[in-house]
């Protein structure tokens, strides 16, 4: 699976949010960093297909091995892409009048999990995320951290091929960050994980992970985490 952005430009109203972005994402974790207004959330929304670029194109391709045609890259349609994306918005609210269990059950069906697996899957995620005791509570009555965990579950429940998370570790305590960090780590073996974060300390210095540093809508750095310290310093100076 690969996402390729070619000279992508995006604006909202009169403001240009992203300027000629060219990069590609493959399986593994990519952290998107940058100060407020750098265009992080706009880039994530573009990747979810929710908004369209003003210029340039975004291609989602899948490596297909066919006995007759050999190996080739298949371009995915918008419908195909939407089936395999998990997304956590920056300020996740969910449907506040639904209970936690009902919302996650609704999302499990929404994401195409066959009905014989829905109950088991919902129970598993609730238990693993320590939300079983609040499963009957309405989402609007949850604490910030609990709500964020519900948001993460809905984004991860179908083990998406493309997982786009906007500030996923916000409001979570250390133990919860560690738990979801491990879940994402496991998922990243087969999926593209794109995480926007301002918590630079949460980024692990791993040879497999990448950083994309956005500065005023342009890519200031895109590469391995070995330059994390330099990026952190630039962010602190900015």
């Amino acid at each position, binding site marked *: 699976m690969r996402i390729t952005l070619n000279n992508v430009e995006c604006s909202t109203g009169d403001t240009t949010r992203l300027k000629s972005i060219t990069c590609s994402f493959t399986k593994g974790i990519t952290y998107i960093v940058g100060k407020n207004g750098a265009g992080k959330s706009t880039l994530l929304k573009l990747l*979810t297909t929710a*908004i369209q670029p003003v210029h340039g194109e975004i291609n989602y391709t899948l490596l297909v091995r066919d006995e007759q045609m050999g190996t080739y890259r298949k371009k995915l349609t918008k419908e195909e892409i*939407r089936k395999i994306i998990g997304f956590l918005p920056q300020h996740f609210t969910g*449907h506040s009048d639904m209970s936690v269990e009902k919302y996650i059950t*609704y*999302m499990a069906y929404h994401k195409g999990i066959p009905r014989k697996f829905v109950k088991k899957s919902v129970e598993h995620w609730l238990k693993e995320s320590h939300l079983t005791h609040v499963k009957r509570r309405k989402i609007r009555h949850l604490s910030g951290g609990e709500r964020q965990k519900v948001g993460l579950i809905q984004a991860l429940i*179908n083990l998406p*091929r493309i997982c786009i998370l906007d500030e996923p570790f916000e409001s979570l305590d250390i133990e919860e960050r560690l738990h979801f960090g491990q879940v994402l780590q496991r998922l990243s*073996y087969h999926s593209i994980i794109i995480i926007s974060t301002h918590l630079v300390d949460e980024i692990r210095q791993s040879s497999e992970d990448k950083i994309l540093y956005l500065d005023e809508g342009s890519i200031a750095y895109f590469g391995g985490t070995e330059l994390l310290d330099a990026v952190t310093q630039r962010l602190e100076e900015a």
Partner: protein
Amino acid sequence: MSGKGLEEVSENQELTKLEQEWKAHFDRFTAPEPTREMTLDLIQKIKNMEQNQSPVDLRQELETTQQSLSTRSKIINMFLSQWNFYGTTSWLLTALLMIAITFTISENFSDAVTGFASWIKWITLLVIGVIGYSFRPKNEGNEIIETLSYYPMIQQIFTRFMIVMGIQLVLTLPLSFVIVGKESTMLYLVSSFIPVFFFGVIGFVAIFWLGQKIGLSITLFIWFSQVLLKKKLLFQAPGDEYFIVMNLMVLVVSILLLSSVILKKRFSVDLK
């Protein structure tokens, strides 16, 4: 230790041996260089080991299960996803409210015709309310999440509409017998069905094209104009002069309005 474990130990030993051989070769160029075949063979073994260590691709398993589902199962799954959006409790409350309206009017009106006229107005108002709730506005995040589904947007929207309308029609038709009593005829069933269907469609289509606030306002405006107007257009009773013509026209208009939804090609979220 299992056979696989022994194999791993032996591979690790081979790898360490090769590493030492290369180190020795770099330290002293006179030391023999390991053969290329040996190196390539070990690289392949390392690749295989990595593959064995990486977690199982559960997504692949899910996709295989999804593909093996029958069309019937897929339809049921989509139905359940939309049913869960409104929720069983909300449906029970709606049914209770419809029953309460029916029995209150049935007790207070001795005359079937005037009772029916009053009952159908309240039932259609409830239909508008339920449609408004089912297609309630969402914030930007929820709207994006809704588009990122296993089911295309158009299928989701139609399924939800069919559930909302289906259940209300199923409830309305038998309840109309309670109101009309012995005077029940096929024509009374028609005069219950058409307004419920019309206001459901108007509410749905208006919300679909114009958003919840404007859509609901327009639907309520039409409802109030019909309630306040002396000349009945939508709430026709079987004895009325233009009963069949009016109901036929309302039905055709409803179907045409409903078809307009297909014209909306883009179901992406417009964040402008």
